[in-house]
């Protein structure tokens, strides 16, 4: 109900305001242009995601001081702490960034955003910004029309800056003209009550505009035009700082538990710094006056003094909160508990991960590993072993010698719950994410989708194999029983090797050794065929049994080949280019046959 009437009410109020005062219209238009500039700037920086930004984020966040610096520098350059927060939440959700590092980035972003106040107060108010805005807009729009993504990105950034400058210019002009008609300082509230009220106004303005930067610019321009008092402007800045957490909280709705914890940290940090700033506001004002004297800022330049205040209380917050980060992490982990992950529900495909190409690829890769683990569990169990036994170093032949495959294990039900459902979720996620991306990420998503299909095929092949495995276990022919036991040992031993490779993928070359496993599968098939022919000739098994065995070895090899093929796409977490190179030099089945044949020749020659 409230939502339904809110927008028309705002529209009506604005329309009345525009009709009543041309100056109000100019200020409101200034804010609108400014916000549009922020959106354009964000769009511009988004063009550079999918490579550079992610690489920087990964490299520049392994230490706390680095993640703090990254937050400061990135927000200073992009002039948007929201974009930095959204990227951080997305990376955290995909598991590419730890919670402590992410908290460091968000703390840094809080300090980085204060540079905006410096720019506006120190530069924007003293220079005719519209003179810079016009050429920026013209060049920006020309570049936006270009085909190349990088040029378009620069275009959006330039146009964004142009709109920001133009917006500030209009706000400034509006307040200057306003001065002649209405004196807003009549509404000034002195003392502590004023601090509280204007802090709330600052929070409300930031929540409505979704940008603390906009609130701050509005405050600075109003302050410069002497439309608000210095004390009230300080309170507005504090409010803006608290209000900005709303963006992060909204972003966290689509994130997983880690993303929500980060939003919690953001809220705690900004509330704590806000509370400190409110309680010690007079001491801070005294400190600002002292610092302004040292920095050579005139005592009457309240706009610059507001920038000093903004930086100072955020810096104070960082100094106080950074030593508490590990405790904060513990607290957040205790309060915001991770939901129990099940084999049936997707664990990594969260909405926040879809925001950026790299995070989307990583989320799909992790979910594919989830499917792989489920498939491995199903196969291992159907063949009569637990996952723990598979991973132990115990002799497989001895382990399954006196153990039949479980007859009550419903592969189909397990497949529906642990593989098919997750694969469907991956397909939906990819279909939502793939549009309009760079080739490298799209290609990796394509490989990961194929990996999912391989895993489905592996479990389907198991379904066919299981039927005869169970029948053979009850057979009176010892040769047939032994041969099916061999099938189980062969499959399990290769899966064990595959798991070992997964756990020790230490360098970029190890993953290529998966091709060696494919050779082993081919050897299993070859040896099995030769042995089966021998068994028929010696009349130890019937022709009907032989054909079943040949078919079932085919299913066993299909299980293995599909698991290996899936592994070659999902075990690698390296860069897209490297993954592409690894994919390109992987051998095809014909090439593998050739390598196998050459090996056989060498062995014959050696004899």
């Amino acid at each position: 109900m409230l939502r339904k009437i809110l927008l028309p009410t705002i529209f009506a109020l604005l329309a009345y305001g525009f009709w009543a005062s041309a100056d109000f219209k100019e200020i409101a238009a200034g804010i609108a242009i400014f916000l549009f500039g922020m959106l354009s700037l964000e769009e511009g920086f988004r063009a550079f995601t999918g490579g550079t930004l992610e690489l920087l984020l990964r490299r520049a966040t392994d230490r706390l001081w680095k993640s703090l610096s990254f937050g400061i520098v990135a927000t200073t350059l992009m002039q948007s702490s929201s974009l930095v927060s959204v990227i951080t939440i997305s990376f955290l959700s995909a598991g590419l960034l730890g919670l402590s590092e992410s908290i460091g980035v968000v703390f840094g972003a809080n300090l980085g955003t204060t540079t905006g106040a410096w720019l506006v107060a120190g530069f924007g108010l003293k220079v005719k910004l519209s003179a810079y805005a016009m050429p920026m807009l013209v060049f920006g729009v020309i570049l936006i029309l270009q085909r190349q993504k990088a040029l378009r990105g620069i275009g959006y950034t330039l146009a964004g800056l142009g709109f920001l400058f133009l917006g500030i210019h209009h706000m400034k002009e509006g307040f200057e003209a306003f001065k002649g008609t209405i004196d807003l300082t009549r509404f000034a509230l002195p003392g502590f009550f004023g601090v509280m009220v204007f802090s709330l106004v600052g929070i409300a303005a930031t929540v409505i505009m979704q940008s603390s930067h906009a609130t701050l610019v509005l405050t600075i321009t109003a302050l410069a035009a002497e439309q608000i008092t210095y004390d009230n402007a300080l309170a507005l800045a504090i409010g803006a700082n608290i209000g900005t957490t709303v963006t992060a909280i909204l972003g966290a709705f689509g994130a997983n538990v880690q993303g929500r914890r980060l939003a919690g940290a953001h809220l705690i940090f900004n509330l704590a710094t806000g509370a400190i700033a409110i309680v010690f506001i007079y001491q801070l004002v005294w400190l600002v006056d002292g610092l302004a004297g040292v920095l050579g800022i005139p005592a009457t330049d309240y706009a610059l003094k507001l920038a000093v205040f903004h930086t100072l209380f955020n810096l104070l917050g960082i100094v106080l909160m950074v030593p508490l980060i590990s405790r904060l992490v513990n607290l957040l982990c205790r309060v915001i508990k991770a939901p129990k992950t099940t084999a049936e529900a997707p664990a990594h495909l969260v909405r926040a991960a879809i925001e950026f190409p790299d995070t989307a690829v990583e989320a799909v890769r992790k979910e594919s590993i989830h499917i792989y683990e489920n498939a491995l569990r199903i196969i291992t169990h159907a063949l009569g072993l637990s996952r723990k036994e598979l991973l132990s170093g115990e002799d497989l032949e001895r382990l399954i010698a006196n153990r039949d495959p479980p007859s009550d294990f419903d592969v189909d039900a397990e497949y529906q719950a642990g593989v098919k459902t997750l694969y469907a979720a991956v397909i939906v996620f990819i279909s939502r994410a793939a549009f309009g991306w760079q080739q490298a990420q799209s290609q990796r998503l394509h490989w990961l989708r194929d990996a999912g299909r391989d895993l489905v095929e592996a479990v389907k092949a198991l379904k066919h194999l299981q039927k005869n495995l169970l029948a053979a276990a009850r057979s009176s022919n010892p040769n047939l029983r032994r041969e099916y036991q061999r099938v189980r040992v062969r499959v399990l031993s290769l899966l064990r090797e595959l798991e070992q490779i997964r756990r020790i993928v230490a360098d970029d070359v190890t993953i290529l050794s998966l091709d060696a496993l494919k050779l082993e599968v081919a050897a299993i098939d070859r040896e099995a065929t030769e042995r089966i022919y021998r068994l028929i000739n010696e009349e130890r098994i019937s022709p009907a049994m032989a054909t079943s065995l040949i078919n079932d070895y085919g299913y066993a090899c299909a299980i293995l080949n599909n698991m290996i093929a899936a592994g070659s796409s999902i075990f690698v977490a390296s860069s897209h280019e490297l993954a592409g190179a690894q994919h390109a030099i992987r051998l095809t089945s014909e090439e593998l046959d050739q390598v196998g044949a050459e090996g056989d020749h060498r062995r014959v020659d050696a004899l």
Partner: protein
Amino acid sequence: MKTKKLLGKLREYFDDQSRARKEKRTSLKKLLKKMRIKEKELKHKLEHERDAEQAAKIEAKIALLHAQRKKGVALLKEDDF
């Protein structure tokens, strides 16, 4: 000539496809270098291996790595990779 070269480089940088291609080639070159080192290591290991079964396994690994490397070198020679 210098300006022309500079402009060419600039155009190449802003052309997404050619930049991606260049990065892919660089990655492949780096990977091939690592593979060559690995192959040498395996050959060295083979010389000191006494167990025939283990030696055969290493030999198979070398053959595979060599075939993959050969494929990679051939890909690098292709213009459209």
